[in-house]
């Protein structure tokens, strides 16, 4: 048991570190650029030097690196303030799906611009009526000639307005059971009939969009997998979403609340001397540490060429509620000032209030607490599924309550 790189890993890390030190974008370079422009600048630079999407095969723009090399690269890149979140869906979810299900010509055409940052992709899976029941999506696609004509609404699409392409799951047959009537496509986000509207969240941010489709046409050639096989293709995407490994980042929060507890007072002494504060902080610390070392165990598996266990899926579940409770408790430490979010007056410029308002989203996005617990119970512990009343029933006959 040790925390050291193997010799090969160390060499790779050194190579990455050297290149990054010489090439990471400076604040001056990024000054004045918006999020997308900055991300594209940096992505192109990585691409040109062979440091983009390094796990991908060379012919698609990568360098055929191993999983642990990817992690090492991520760790090293994280030491610099580099832009790039806008590519996460395209490179992390759309690309692996394309590699698994796309035709060779699709891959050769679309993967390199994803790697180089020329194209941004988004994901169009969720729908208002679906929620946790992702496959209950209703947006229709009907075959007209060589095209499919799309009508309906998607939701929770991040980056829809600056994306070039989108991956989408559509209901191509509502008369068969839920999972069997879906097909999977990628489509041009500039197609006529697409209407994108931002969704304002309670945190005040608008990271997501609703996307409305009115007679939008997508060529049948852009279908991935067979007609009716959309759910299986979608599972490839979703698996890649869940496989995203944080490289040991086990949630944040302890540090911020610990620091606050050293500043504010209870009974005339620093709050950190208060045993109630200490007990709570200790439990949160232990949770964060547990997530961090669970991440280390996954990295170890990667380093050995194994696939990490299902432990990773606990991260979001634990971190989201912890963040909510910690933010709430931090505000309690501020006492009468707890609710003040005003950057001009609030402690830490509204940090805790921001955590508090963002936390409910963390407990829902990417699978609600309840869905994560189901997944752990069924896929990890192997417990039997709940009763499924919609099983085997034609989708258009499943009760919907509306």
């Amino acid at each position, binding site marked *: 048991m040790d925390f050291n790189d193997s010799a090969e890993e160390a060499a790779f890390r050194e190579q990455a570190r050297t290149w990054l030190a010489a090439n990471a974008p400076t604040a001056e370079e990024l000054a004045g650029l918006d999020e997308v422009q900055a991300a594209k600048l940096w992505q192109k630079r990585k691409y040109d030097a062979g440091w983009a999407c390094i796990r991908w095969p060379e012919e698609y723009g990568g360098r055929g690196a191993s999983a642990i090399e990817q992690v090492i690269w991520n760790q090293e890149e994280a030491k610099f303030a580099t832009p790039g979140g806008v590519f996460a869906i395209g490179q992390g979810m759309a690309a692996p799906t394309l590699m698994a299900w796309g035709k060779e010509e699709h891959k050769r055409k679309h993967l390199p611009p994803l790697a180089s940052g020329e194209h941004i992709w988004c994901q169009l899976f969720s729908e208002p009526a679906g929620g946790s029941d992702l496959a209950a999506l209703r947006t229709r696609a009907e075959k007209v000639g060589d095209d499919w004509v799309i009508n309906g609404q998607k939701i929770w699409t991040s980056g829809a307005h600056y994306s070039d392409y989108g991956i989408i799951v559509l209901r191509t047959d509502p008369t068969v059971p839920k999972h069997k009537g879906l097909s999977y496509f990628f489509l041009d986000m500039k197609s006529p009939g697409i209407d994108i509207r931002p969704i304002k969240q309670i945190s005040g941010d608008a990271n997501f969009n609703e996307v409305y489709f009115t007679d939008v046409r997508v060529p049948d050639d852009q279908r991935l997998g067979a007609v009716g096989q959309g759910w299986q293709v979608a599972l490839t995407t979703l698996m890649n979403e869940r496989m995203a490994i944080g490289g040991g980042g086990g949630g944040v929060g302890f540090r911020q609340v610990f620091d606050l507890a050293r500043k504010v007072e209870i009974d005339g002494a620093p709050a950190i001397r208060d045993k109630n504060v200490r007990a709570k902080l200790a439990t949160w610390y232990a949770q964060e540490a547990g997530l961090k070392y669970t991440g280390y165990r996954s990295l170890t598996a990667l380093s050995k060429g194994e696939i990490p266990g299902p432990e990773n899926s606990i991260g979001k579940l634990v971190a989201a509620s912890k963040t909510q409770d910690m933010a709430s408790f931090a505000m309690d430490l*501020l006492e009468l000032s707890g609710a003040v979010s005003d950057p001009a007056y609030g402690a830490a410029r509204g940090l805790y209030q921001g955590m508090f308002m963002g936390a409910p989203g963390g407990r829902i996005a990417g699978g609600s607490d*309840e869905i994560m617990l189901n997944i752990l119970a069924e896929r990890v512990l192997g417990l039997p599924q709940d009763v499924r009343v919609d099983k085997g029933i034609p989708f258009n006959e499943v009760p919907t309550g509306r």
Partner: protein
Amino acid sequence: MNFEFSDEQNLLREQAVGFLQENCPPAAVRAILDGDAAYDQALWKKIAELGWMATVVPERYGGIGLSHLELCVIAEELGRAVAPVPFSSSVYLATEALLLAGSESQQEKWLPKLATGGAIGTFALGEGPGQPTPAKLATIAAGGRLAGVKMPVADGDVADFAVVVAKADSGDGASLYLAELDGVARTPVATLDPTRSHARIAFDNDAAEPLGAPGQGWALAQRLFDRAAVLFAWEQVGGAAAALDMAKEYASQRYAFGRPIASYQAIKHKLAHAYVKNTLARANCYYGAWALGTDAAELPLAAATARVSATQAYYYASKENIQTHGGMGFTWEFDCQFHYRRAKLLSVNIGSESTWQDKLIAAVEQRNAA
């Protein structure tokens, strides 16, 4: 044993419910959330017409002279409606402070105006992050003038006067002062609940008169908070009940995997837990109401008990209401956020859960010592 509100009090509740459904629907709350107004002036006026601010004000000061039980009923309904008005500051704090410690002439001057809603009062204790203590007070009273910064002061931007906890330069410790706010430097302060306005008040040798005996400010503030805690707790249980109702309704209508999500144990048990917390908190509020209404010796313990359980109940109900709504609950468009914001605001603005837990045990210790 009669541990229920009277028929008259229940009638008052019915009227309040009907009135608030009409005059304080979610759209009214949203208007304050989204707009620039500090509070809902139209609603405030109508509430005044109903005489709600006058509830416990003696008749000789233009009040109705009812008991605090009636005020508890109103508090619960205002909490349920997440009403965007300065009621808690003006009624639970300023009016109570005057009743508790005001001189005859102070009461004569202010109570009639407070009772009609024509004047808004507030209470100014906090001076920034952390637990306030007498030793840390930096607002100083000297020669009938106050100097120092109070932040945040609920409704401080719209109040006509504030009851201020300050230190007399004569060295008597903390005392209460009544300061008219017209002309005093006030800046609105953003909080996570924009439906209730807050301000920073910078006293710069502004006029103020003593309220109550000198040196008694801290003890009076504690007594005032014990009284207000019961009323805040009723607002909290009202809000918690509304949040549970929202969750129940949504979960019964929303389907997943072919059946209502309310039929899944994960949701059922979540809401049952909320019901349990709400029921316990409400029962403790009943006892708090009794203690407040009779000015019982048990008030400190009853108030802390109601406050602790109401804070826990509203936090739970408001966050799990969002969770039950899923992604939509996290959108600005949905009303779940009202309770989530208000729950947290109410939980800190007369002292945190931990502070009241400590007070609760102190009250138990005191009862044992007696």
